[in-house]
């Protein structure tokens, strides 16, 4: 049973003209298909998140926002840790579903399973997430180490002589407890960043000494063949998005993959013998007219820059792409 909650806060997303077209296209297609359940368009997901209990300020979609499980990828949402209603929302876990029933939490989208931050499930989840974060950090450190060794071996020198050091290490999918100023008061918030990057401005105490003057570096990887960027955090970003910016080019509905001729009648005939129900995937006819729906990293980065939530610093051209 669904009660449609009115939003607690506004849902906002940042776009330029090109990206705006893509967002609305996605929404239009979803509505045409009668889209209930399944793959929700990002706009709708931003709205659903905006209705979560305890959310503060806004549910924000960065320019590269696109549909994802639970939260849209590129969605930021902050929850007041001191609000007893506030939730942490990891996605559908069985424990969460139990907690929601018990604590009477209603959401617009089943995928947005969550628990009160202070509840045992919420606390357990935060601990689990911290463990996962550590694991990921160790993993990245190991990869860095091995990369340095590999280069050293090939060039027959040491990693330090090659000046190979980590510029910055940041995660795109994590919820962090941070201090932010909201309505003039300093509050402790649980900031959910899914597919978005933390971008603190210059002089922020939490960033390393080396970057105190410039602000936190934000590494935006493009895709194969496109440019990548290094951005920095800004003061405006702190107030508008709690120090959050995009994380890369957003994949909307990638048409590249659907250039197929789905032709399988023979195969279907053979399978039909088994008497088991078979469903067949086929791209919806509407998609045939849709334009290239790929969010370009340059559009995304420029939009962030123009909106003032991060500043472009360096543009990088790819020399080689290694796919593993």
């Amino acid at each position, binding site marked *: 049973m669904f009660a449609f909650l009115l939003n607690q806060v506004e849902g906002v997303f940042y776009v330029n003209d090109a990206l705006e077209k893509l967002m609305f296209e996605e929404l239009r297609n979803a509505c045409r298909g009668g889209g209930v359940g399944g*793959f929700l368009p990002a706009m709708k997901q931003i709205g659903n998140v905006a209705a979560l209990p305890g959310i503060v300020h806004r549910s924000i979609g960065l320019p590269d926002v696109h549909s994802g499980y639970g939260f849209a990828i590129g969605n930021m949402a902050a929850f007041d840790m001191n609000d007893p209603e506030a939730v942490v929302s990891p996605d559908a876990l069985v424990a969460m579903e139990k907690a929601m029933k018990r604590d009477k939490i209603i959401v617009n989208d089943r995928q947005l399973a969550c628990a009160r931050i202070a509840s045992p499930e919420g606390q357990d989840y935060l601990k689990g997430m911290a463990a996962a974060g550590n694991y990921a950090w160790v993993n990245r450190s190991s990869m860095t180490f091995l990369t340095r060794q590999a280069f050293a071996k090939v060039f027959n020198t040491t990693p330090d002589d090659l000046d190979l050091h980590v510029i910055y290490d940041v995660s795109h999918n994590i919820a962090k407890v941070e201090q932010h100023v909201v309505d003039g008061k300093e509050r402790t918030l649980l900031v959910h960043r899914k597919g978005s990057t933390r971008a603190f401005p210059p002089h922020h105490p939490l960033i390393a000494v080396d970057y105190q003057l410039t602000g936190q570096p934000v590494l935006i990887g493009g895709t194969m063949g496109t440019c990548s960027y290094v951005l920095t955090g800004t003061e405006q970003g702190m107030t508008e998005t709690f120090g959050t910016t995009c994380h890369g080019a957003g*994949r909307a509905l990638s048409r590249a993959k659907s250039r197929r001729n789905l032709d399988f009648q023979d195969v279907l005939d053979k399978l039909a013998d088994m008497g088991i129900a078979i469903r*067949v995937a086929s791209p919806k006819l509407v998609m045939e007219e849709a334009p290239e729906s790929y969010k370009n990293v340059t559009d995304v980065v420029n939009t962030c820059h123009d909106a003032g939530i991060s500043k472009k610093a360096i543009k990088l051209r790819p020399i080689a792409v290694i796919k593993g």
Partner: protein
Amino acid sequence: MEAARSVGPLVVVGGGIAGVTCAEQLAVTFPEEDILLVTASPVIKAVTNFKQVSKVLEEFDVEEQPSTVLENRFPNIKVIESGVRQLKSEEHCIVTEDGRQHVYKKLCLCAGAKPKLICEGNPYVLGIRDTDSAQEFQKQLRKAKRIMIVGNGGIALELVYEIEGCEVIWAIKDKAIGNTFFDAGAAEFLISKLMSEKSEAKIAHRRTIYTVEGKCNIWLVSFMDETKRRAGHTTVKTCRISWVSRLPLNLPHHAWPFKCWVDSAHLCTQTLRGVFGGISMLYLYYDIHVSAGTVWIVLTNIHFVQFSHSIHIETKCEVKKIYLQEEFKIMKKKPLTFPKDQHKSVTVDKEVWPVYVELTNGKIYGCDFLVSATGVTPNVHPFLHGNNFDLGEDGGLKVDDQMRTSLPDIYAAGDICTACWQPSPVWQQMRLWTQARQMGWYAAKCMAAAGLGQSSDMDFSFELFAHVTKFFNYKVVLLGKYNAQGLGPDHELMLRCTRGQEYVKVVMQNGRMMGAVLIGETDLEETFENLILNQMDLSSYGEDLLDPDIDIEDYFD
């Protein structure tokens, strides 16, 4: 009683993947202890180029190495090259063929399985299980014009695709090919690749066979001493060139035409212009054990024609009887020719073959030899006498979730064992190299834990069945209950297929993913692995889950 038994080394029987992995793991865990590896063959199998593709998917190569390599890497491993004649479980010792007795503290049996031969003792019936038999097979294949393959498992599938330049009659007892691995739909998808008249231009074959037509010059070029000697000049009508790597061929004093596969694509692309003025050439690398070092044989002036497959499939039949040439002459039965096309126009075969096979559907074909790929049977025989092992229905040694057999201090891993623990709902035992490795490793872990009086937690690789392989040059990934094994009628399938490119089949039960078959470069294996492991309710997505327009990998990331 137990205290008196805890002397002696840890003994592993079997030099295959399971045995070697177990021995290595034991050697690493117990650097102070002696590990004995008993193997009947002079070479052992080693895993090389191991790559963890995703959480449970692994890729690796299997190489044969002399046992000294293992002993060098692990000084506490000693390899005994002898088969096992008898196992005396009460006394905790094994007796090897060479008459020696070896006492063990703990024993792990990894003696594998052997091919079920449809007919024992017939020299024209070959089974392929390992590289020994594969080499024998290749030797026979070089001279063959037509062979028959009986069986429908992984080995048969691989063979059928790999063999070129030879007629193949494939007899299967099922309705569709690849029964153990695929359903009828995937089989249909693969068959179209197999039966196509022209091979696609850009297949990255490991081996390619070329036909040389017309006159061709043959040169011997040695890069060591820069001499070019003209070796011969031959008029070749149809010289099939197929070459088995690493088998030294004696130099061209005997029968031209000779057969050799060109072993890697880059050899052919060294069709250099310039040296011989733009004439297309084929360099064949020969490793000739003479003092001249390496010698190249160069064929110039050749005209390449690529073979396609010549395969005819007989379904729903088994082998009724096999006749040798002499017997068959007396029988006066009528053998059929190789059906050249899809039409039923078969005629009586005038050619004489060394062996004739009568199938249960009444057809008779002559051929050079027959390959029996009908499955394997666990090698338990040497260990049974005098010991009361619990055996599984398939004849293997039953093992529990600590890889223990029913007898104390005896473990088993790999093809010889039958897993009898309560399996995860998305895992099943299959006699594959990947499982042999996982089991060997896990058995060693359990043996170590038992030594400390502890038990082991089931290894993660047994949570989800996962296997990645190549069939018909397609990447094939099998996950979980990929053929809805044991799910009964209460499940449904989701399918996405593009002829010649990819085949995606997902098994769903109660809205959750239970298994998947992915053929081709789908990039879906990691996402599906996760969805099967976390059993997320996917019913709201319906068949949109496989919508190619939606980047599902990114969505669930």
